[in-house]
């Protein structure tokens, strides 16, 4: 049972590129249990005809007009890049 939970957490962690050891996974499993238990209280309510709440503040149609504005300079854009060649961002090769 607990193994299933830690496996599920590990899957999600892998997708998020996070590494945890077995002990950490156990701790998370316990913590997640508590959180789900807490949120699970809601299940006592009849939510048959209630739409999921997507935003706390209900707002729609917040637009910007389609006008091109000034962008960063390339030097500014690259300033925080771990690796660049003054024109491009550089990342480890992903294709052979």
């Amino acid at each position, binding site marked *: 049972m607990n193994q299933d939970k830690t496996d599920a957490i590990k899957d999600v962690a892998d997708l998020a590129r996070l590494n945890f050891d077995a002990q950490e996974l156990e701790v998370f499993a316990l913590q997640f249990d508590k959180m789900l238990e807490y949120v699970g209280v809601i299940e006592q309510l009849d939510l048959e005809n209630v739409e999921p709440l997507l935003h706390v503040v209900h707002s729609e149609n917040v637009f910007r007009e389609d*006008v091109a504005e000034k962008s960063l300079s390339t030097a500014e854009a690259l300033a925080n890049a771990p690796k660049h060649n003054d024109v491009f961002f550089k990342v480890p090769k992903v294709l052979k």
Partner: protein
Amino acid sequence: MTESIVSNTSIVETNSEYEAVIGLEVHAQLLTESKAFCGCSSDFGALPNTNVCPVCLGHPGSLPKLNRNLVEFILKMGLATGCKIREHSIFSRKNYFYADLPKGYQISQYSDPICYDGKIEIELGDGATKRIGITRIHMEEDTGKSIHDLDIDTLIDYNRCGVPLIEIVSEPDIRSATEAYQYLMQIRQIVMYLGICDGNLEEGSLRCDANVSVRKRGSTKFGVKTEVKNLNSFRNVEKAIGYETDRQIALIKSGGFVTQETRMWDASSQQTKLMRSKEQAHDYRYFPEPDLAGVYVNAEWVERVKSVLPELPMERKQRFMNFYGLPRYDAGIFVEDKSLSDFFERCAGELETKSADRFKAVSNWIMTEVMRILSDRKIGINELAVLPKHIAELVELFVGEVVSSKIAKEIFSDVLANGKSPKVIVSEKNLAQISDVAQIEKAVSEILAANGDNVEKYKAGKTNLFGFFVSQTLKATGGRANPRIVTEELQRQLNAV
């Protein structure tokens, strides 16, 4: 732009035992001024990493704000394809790690896309049409561009990152590679007529993935499908789908079975190759995008977009056939390129006498003389400096037998070179065709008198000398004698000898 249909007789089209079931996912890059969620220019071809800002670079704390035209443009596409428009829709995050997407997720629409349940009509040979269902059309953002072959590292240009896309997902209604080609062609024409995408497959403003499966004909159950990617030209779409259906049928016939996987079309080997199997498929963990407000499209907005929708390619094609009396072929050629069909209409509108035969003559002139020059110079009609009025004049000059078609072609070169009106060129260079019978009668009798020996040979049975007499007479009149009258007159005088 006119690319003939590759005749691709895959097994599916000739084998009655199996049929292909194909659905297409088409991405169209929108012609907005700025990106989907920030004010960076969406210009194609700018220097690398010049159209970027904290939002599209995914800097912490930056917030997206939706470009109104993204909604406006997708509504045009939705309404042009008969889609239902959802009043309330939202954006979701599609999460995956790849360096061309600095946020770690793509903003897209997942459940409840803004447009759904539409259709596109395609033509199958002789004007029969088939309806291909549209499952959904949704909004999303493009990724950056990775360059793998210039450096030991992968180089990334984020100019394209955040440029708005729409994804058009079809129902699995397509039954052959040729139908897939026709469907894609229709989408391309529609987005271009709507002015929301430049329709360029080679440059990637239109991209196509295909879901392909096969099944026994008559079966209602779907077979296992593969997804085929990298279809970056019309030719490749047809070839790749043809190849993939053949591959699946051969596999099944030899006792094997198709596995659900993603394959990539490799144009150099003309094969589809395995990219990833289903086990390696992504889990995108979609969830509602908390940084963007929802989109609400009321009836008023829908009506306003509807009222400004232009005439669509299929409608225009029908009108060209009905109103101008053009053959389906001619109408199809023009409609494929909106500018060219606009040009035809402007030329036809400049005709002094508006009649079906003159419309057809204009059509012939554009399809032969004008399109030959466009293809020689590799330009579009809008880059050719010629007035529709001059094309109409020229066509009327030769339909009215004022000049021969040979002279008309010479005049056309002049018109292109110096922009003068064909009528002016005719009078300045004295090119008007001689249709005065008395004048031609005189020219013919002079030629016959000067070639007595050949007249005798002709009378003795060497009738192929007739062409020689024609060309001699035309030459004597500087090419201006009406060939029809020359022929009649020669026959008359030779018979009388």
